[in-house]
Structure formats: C-alpha cells, structure tokens
C-alpha cells in the first residue's frame, strides 16, 4: 500500500470515528477533530481491525496531527 493510500484510509477512519465532515490533511490536528477519548478508541480500534496495526491510545494521545498517526501506522505495518 502506498503512503497516500494509507493516509486516505486512516483519514477516512478518522472522519467516521470523529463524525468530522471537513477535509482531513496530514496537518489536521486531533484538537480540530474534536474532544473525546471514546472517539480516539473508535479510531484505534478501526485501524487495528482493518489494517492489523495496533497503535495504542496512549501513543495517539501524545500525537498532534493525523500525519503523525499515519507515520506510526506505517511503521507498525512494515514492522
């Protein structure tokens, strides 16, 4: 899977998990997506289920942007 395809997949998961209707770029922050750890849990669960990549919520909580999350998911898939 190319980096762009991976980004589009993760961005799509984030839109559903956060109920976000705007455009998501690599620089979109989690603050912009909205508050709520349940939404973050939904996002990490979807990533794990669909891409078989486990990124913990603790890790995501330390991230600022979707771009960082996509990089971490890519590492997990490659690893």
């Amino acid at each position, binding site marked *: 899977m190319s980096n762009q395809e991976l980004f589009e997949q993760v961005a799509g998961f984030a839109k559903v998990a956060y109920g976000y209707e705007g455009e998501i770029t690599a620089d979109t922050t989690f603050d912009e997506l909205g*508050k709520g*750890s*349940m939404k973050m*849990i*939904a996002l990490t669960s979807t990533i*794990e*289920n669909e891409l*078989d990549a486990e990124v913990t*919520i*603790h890790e995501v909580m330390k991230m600022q942007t979707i771009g960082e999350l996509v990089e971490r998911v890519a590492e997990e898939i490659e690893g």
Partner: protein
Amino acid sequence: MSLMDQLRERACAARMKVAFPEGDDETMMRAVAELTEQGIADCVLVGNGEELRSLASERGISLDGIEIADITDEVANAALAERYLALPDCPFKAKGVARRLVRPMEHAFILQALGDVDITFAGISCSTGDVILAGQTIIGLADGIDTVSSVGIFDIPGYEGSEGNLLGFGDSAVCANPDASQLASIAISACETVAALTQWDPRCALLSYSTCGSATGELVDKVIAARDIANERRPDLKIDGEFQFDSAINPRTAARKVPRDSEVAGRANIVIWPDLNVGNVGVKLVQQFAHADAYGPMLQGFKKIVCDCSRSAGVSEIVGNVIMSCVRAAVLKGEA
C-alpha cells in the same frame, strides 16, 4: 456503625466476583487473600497461572478459595474469544481479541464484559490512565454518560450537614477540564455512585463562583448549561445550580442567596466542582483545614464497576476500595 462497617456488611451479604489482573504484586495478592478469608468477595486472580501459584508459595500466601484465570491457557482463551466476539458491541476482530486475552488487565475486562466477573480492580502497578482506557475500550461508558470521572465521600469532623459529617464530592481526580455535557455526566454519575453507597436520596449541587446569576461569564454559563443537560437527561435526579459552595450546603446562606425553589440549595449532599483545578484545591482545603478523611476517589461512568487504587495503596486500603466496589456492583445488578 461507620459507613465502611455498613458497606462491609452489605458486601458480605451480596458477594460479588472481582477480577484482579495485578495478582503478581505482593500487596494485591495479600489483599485478595484477606478479601477471600473474610468472605467479602469471590476473587479471581488474572495472570500467568503457574507464575501466580509460584509467587503465592514463595510469599506464604494461601490461594484457597481464590480462582485463577490463566492467560496462558490457550483452550480457555479460545473459548472466551468465541464468546466475546459474539457480543454485539465487541470492538475487535479475532486477532485483536487474541492479542488482548494474553494481557492480564484486558483479559480481566473481557471476563467482565462477558459477565463472568462483576468488577475489575487494578491500579497498583499500572496508572489510572491505563485502567480507564482499557475500561473504556472493553466495558464502555454507561448510557447517557460521556466521560469517566471520579467521586469521593468526605468524612469531616464537626461538619453538620444534611447527612451529618458526610459529603459527596466529584470530580477531583480524572476529568481535567469538563465541558458542559461532561460536567452533567459527572453529576449524574456521582448521584448514582453516592446513592448506591450511602442509600441517600442524592441532592447534587453544581458549584460555581456565582449563585443563580449573581455573577456572569463563560465559566458560569458552562455550569448553568451542565445543569440543564443533566436535568434533561435525568429528570428523576435532583441536580441543581449554579451555586456557590456556601449556598449549596448552608441553609441560611441558601435562604438569602437563592431566590427560587430548589430541592438542593442549602442541603446538598453531593457537590460537583466545575473543573479539576477547583476539585484538587477543594479536596486539599477540606483535608488540611478540616482534617477530613475521604472515601475514594472512586472511578465512575462505566457500564460496569471498574475500580483502581493508588500505587502506594496498602492491603487495608485495597480491601476498603473493593468493599465499596462490591456494594456498587450489587446495586447495579439489583442485588443490594
């Protein structure tokens, strides 16, 4: 009889089953042995069975009457996975479930989600954040609740409030900067938790620096919005505000400052801090100046009872926390 003595009696009368995923910790294992010996709860140690038995033997702790859920038992894990995956709200696929069943805390939560245990108790070797996140993921939040929070009960020498020396308070430990909806959730959860433990009719005051519009500003607006949300979600509960602390608990002040009927003003038995800054400072003030003890803080807001303890907790503190959790779980199941 003290509140804790009453709770102990109630816990023993309706025994709940409690999962302990940190049985490898010596203090936790000793607490589990004591809970079992005193007939307070049916205890399940979750972990590597062989390792747990060996540790118990080294420590001279009897595991008689204590169940062990062995995370290395592949046959048992496969059976659990099949049942868990069949739950309509299981958030994972088979691989994710298998991954989690070999981790003690998540294994414990899966047992709880399946109804095999009533309570998960952890926190002595992992952070409150870890317990909360695993609990939110596998157990989920209660209906109408959008944040995990905490509640405690002060025992304040010399205080003569509507429940004698006792006063419920929340949240002073978990939700740092709640929005109005989360603040409403904290109040609703606190009413449920405190009522389960004390059998009081909860009267819950949302605190502010303003009483009924005596001051204005966005901080006041948040508390007013929280009251409206709480009343809309749970019209059966007595949740009111915005009140200053004295207006909430002192009938004379309430009579002067609250210009409308209220079932809460002046006789609140639960107070809700507007955020964690206030909550932390408030608790420290009461402890330092009034020499109060506190039961808790207890986690709340989950679909089922999830409890953590401080990493420095001793055996008696763990036993007390488990007793409170058991009573809450029994009330939730309609058995107490």
